[in-house]
């Protein structure tokens, strides 16, 4: 059952991640193991999700759900990714005063956050190999765009939507116009 699979996958993603970019490694793993998405699709998705309003996790669940099983699929995936909120956070809300300053939670975060960063770093390696080295060929234009964007993001404090828009325009020039001019 595709719906049950989607729900379970996104529930797993929800429970083992802490929002934002920390979801990407888990989504990549789940999507490629089920054959629902390629790393290329995922990169496109990250860019699209960053360009549209709303939390990244919800955007990813909607996109994947729609791609694999239409609108019903997106509803199921979104409900799956929301399961931690509906269960754990609901319990926390009820006992809020006790959880406010919990030493257990602090310990868990101390250990899990570095693990999340490690997961993100390993996704960077995976995505780099599919984005910048396609079928053994070095994509020098893509590497150039990446270096420029990294500089603009970190040193020039450009916003993510600005970076995405300008790299898409560079893509149109380098991968659209240039091959045409060269014939």
């Amino acid at each position: 059952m595709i719906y049950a699979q989607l729900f379970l996958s996104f529930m797993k993603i929800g429970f083992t991640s802490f929002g934002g970019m920390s979801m990407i490694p888990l989504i990549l793993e789940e999507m490629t193991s089920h054959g629902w998405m390629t790393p290329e699709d995922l990169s496109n998705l990250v860019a699209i999700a960053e360009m549209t309003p709303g939390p990244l996790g919800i955007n990813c669940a909607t996109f994947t759900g729609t791609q694999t099983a239409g609108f019903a699929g997106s509803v199921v995936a979104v409900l799956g990714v929301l399961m931690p909120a509906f269960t754990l956070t609901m319990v926390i809300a009820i006992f809020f005063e006790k959880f406010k300053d919990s030493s257990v939670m602090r310990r868990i975060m101390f250990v899990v956050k570095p693990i999340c960063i490690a997961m993100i770093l390993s996704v960077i390696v995976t995505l780099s190999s599919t984005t910048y080295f396609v079928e053994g060929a070095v994509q020098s234009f893509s590497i150039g765009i990446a270096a420029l964007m990294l500089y603009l993001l970190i040193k020039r404090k450009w916003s993510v939507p600005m970076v995405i828009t300008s790299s898409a325009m560079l893509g149109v020039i380098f991968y659209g116009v240039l091959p045409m001019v060269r014939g």
Partner: protein
Amino acid sequence: MDRIKKGLSIFAFFFKIGCFTFGGGWAILAQMEQEFVDKRQIITKSELLEMVAVGKSAPGIMITNISLLFGYHVAGVFGGLCAVFGIITPAVIILSIVTLFYNSFKDNYWVHAGLTGLRAAVVPIIGSAALSLGKDALRTPPAIAICLVAFCLSLLAGVSNIVLVLAGVVGALAWWAGTRIKKERVQEA
């Protein structure tokens, strides 16, 4: 009746901020602060900060966790659900439409070229997110060691992410229990 009315107005507000919020959770928080702390004075700033701290440390999406805590605080379970569905509905609608266009346009020559350029920017974007997360989470040598070990396990040994996170949670619980027992012993002695 009062709860239902409150719930619906929570839904409406969260729907509105869900429509116009780019840049993730922190931008949404700024709007919540303006609306609920400054304008309507439903909660105090320190209450909101407590919700943020708890919502951030619970698993799942930070902003839906915070929305749920806030909605529950104002109007119980129904309020919590209204807040969560309010904030996600615009995202679901917009992304459904975008996905339809993605499928029909991604093979177009020009769109394909644009997407190729755009994909080149994804690694730097994720990288800069990792960098700012790292500044916060990798302040101590043990944290850096955990990160390095997890990185090697993930990339070289192919250990799955879920296993890594669960191992981390179990390890943290053992560590917490260990220091508690130690403390009790010190107190007894």
